[in-house]
Each structure stands twice: as C-alpha cells, then as structure tokens.
C-alpha cells in the first residue's frame, strides 16, 4: 500500500482504545484504532493529547510498539508525578477514546533496505521503538544480524519479557539487570558500561548501525562508549526520553 507516512498534514484524531495489556507493574501496551491511520515506520512515535474539563490540555509523545502492518499499539510507562502517563496506565480502558496524531519521526527509523548489522541498545522503556524494529525485521523476512542489549532495573521490570525470545533467527537478546538479579540469573548485572559494550556491541569493522534509546543520561553514556569503540557518530542514532 502506498502511503505518505510523513508528508501528509499532521492532524489530531480520536482513536478507539481496543485493548490494554499490562506489561509490568508500571507499563502497559495500548492498542488503538484511529479512523485515519496512514501506516508508520519502525521507530516512529505518535503524540497523545489529554483535555481536561476546563480545557487544559497536555500532550506527550509515545513510541509506537507495533511493527508496520500490525494493529497500532503504543507502550507507556507510568512516570511518578507524570501528568499524562498515570491516566494511560491506570485509568484508560478498552472502549475509551484517545486523541492522537502521527506518525512522527524520520531520523530514528529503521527500514529493511538498510543491510547493516543492527545494534539496538535500550534503557528501560527505550526498548519500545527497538521492539517495533525487531518485529518489523521479523515480519519482512530480513536477515540482517541484530543484537538487542536491554537494560532494566529488575526482572519484573523487563518489558515484552515473553516476546524477547521470539524475534526470529539472527537476533541475539542480551539483558542486564541493574538493581537486583534473581537467583540463577545468567545475564549481565549492573549498568551498561564500556566493558559490557566492548563485549556485546558489533565490532566497528562490521559497519553496524546502532539505535540507542532510553533516558538521556543512559543514551549519552552509551553513545560515548560506542564512539570509544570506534563507531563513527553517523552510525549511532539516538533518542533521549529525558530524565528518569
């Protein structure tokens, strides 16, 4: 289907909420049915707008979790003192409507036409757009080698936990837990650092393409380390979510 996923006018529309699935204690995936959705690219986001009775509006951006062609879904993490996220994670219900516009973004996107080995590095809810990319890779039959290095606080905080093993052949998922690890944990422990990246990142000689997403401090530390490993800045795409 030929769609103009970016150049059409960006208008707000009321989307039906078709389902809400709980991923973790503070994270939900919301499936949406906007009346006029043009499709999207893996890595893009959409904007959500809440309007209070007095007319006050609050807008936030959420990464699209679904791959192009799948039912549209976003994954939202409840932020303490958040203005919008607590409503989405704790009060919104299937059957409600949600005002949104999108898709938005042209930089932090991955398309299968790029055959560079993929290095995806996620901090917390930064995994959402990378999940879309891996689902898209699977659905399009792409065979580019891909690695996801995913940092979470604890095992119960891992989003898409039951899906991480089902991205298909050629995808390695490496998890690190920074605050506590369960008995028998065989993954990494502690924050992503230079040593962990030296062990897990594709060597620069393989001409990889890296996507790094998560809290601002996480993204900047990881990007700096990748540069230290010889990645030119042009091979590192970043998306910063702000402070934790």
């Amino acid at each position: 289907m030929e769609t103009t996923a970016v150049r059409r006018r960006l208008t707000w529309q009321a989307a039906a909420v078709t389902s809400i699935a709980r991923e973790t204690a503070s994270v939900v995936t919301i499936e949406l049915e906007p009346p006029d959705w043009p499709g999207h690219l893996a890595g893009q986001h959409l904007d959500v707008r809440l309007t209070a009775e007095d007319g006050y509006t609050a807008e936030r951006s959420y990464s699209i979790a679904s791959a192009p062609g799948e039912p549209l879904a976003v994954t939202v993490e409840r932020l303490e003192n958040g203005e919008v996220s607590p409503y989405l994670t704790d009060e919104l219900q299937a059957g409600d409507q949600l005002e949104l516009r999108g898709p938005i973004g042209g930089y932090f996107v991955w398309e299968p036409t790029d055959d560079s080995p993929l290095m995806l590095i996620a901090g917390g809810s930064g995994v959402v757009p990378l999940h879309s990319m891996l689902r898209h890779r699977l659905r399009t039959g792409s065979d580019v080698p891909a690695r996801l290095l995913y940092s979470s606080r604890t095992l119960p905080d891992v989003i898409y936990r039951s899906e991480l093993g089902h991205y298909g052949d050629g995808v390695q998922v490496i998890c690190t837990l920074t605050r506590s690890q369960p008995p028998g944990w065989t993954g990494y422990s502690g924050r992503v650092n230079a040593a962990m990246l030296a062990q897990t990142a594709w060597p620069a000689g393989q001409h990889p393409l890296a996507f790094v997403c998560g809290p601002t401090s996480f993204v900047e530390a990881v990007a700096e380390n990748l540069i230290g490993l010889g990645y030119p800045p042009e091979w590192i795409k970043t998306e910063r979510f702000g402070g934790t």
Partner: protein
Amino acid sequence: MSRGTTGEALMDAVDGNAIGGLLIDVFGTEMTVASSTCDTCGATRPVAELVVYRRAPGTVVRCRTCGSVLMVFVKAQGVTCVDVAGLASLGMPDDLTLNR
C-alpha cells in the same frame, strides 16, 4: 539535580526527536533529519541530535557542541512563534524519500 552552564537542569534535556510534531506544525514537514548548522560555532548535525529543553509555553533548542540557542518556539493562544536566529542554516538532504 545537576545544572550545566546553560542553567537548565541537565536531566530534563531531550533531543530533536521529541519535537518532531512541533517541527511539522511549524515547517510543514518532517524536520528531524534536516541538517542544522550552528551560527555560533559552525557545528553541523541532524535536528534530531540537538539538545531540547521543554519549558511550557516554550521550547528551547541548543547546539550540542557549544550550547548556543539555535531555535526557540513559544505557543500562545493558538499561535506558535519561532525564533531561529541562532541557526546559520537548516537544510533537507536531496535524497530524502520518506513517502512510501
């Protein structure tokens, strides 16, 4: 909360990806892949990689290299005011094909 030389709380900074929608409102098209050049230090990078501070009702976009203000957006009563005086240039790559 630590503060950088620019005065804003460092942990509040996001990047140009976060204002993708605002940029479409103002420029009429996707602009996060546009190449920005800082008028102060000459640094060039995609808009997506600029430092963005959101301070309602305004958004401040700074050069990641020297911290100079490149763009300021202020929304009031349905009107968005844009100041891009800090930019030397803003350009879209010739081979940009985002239409599918």
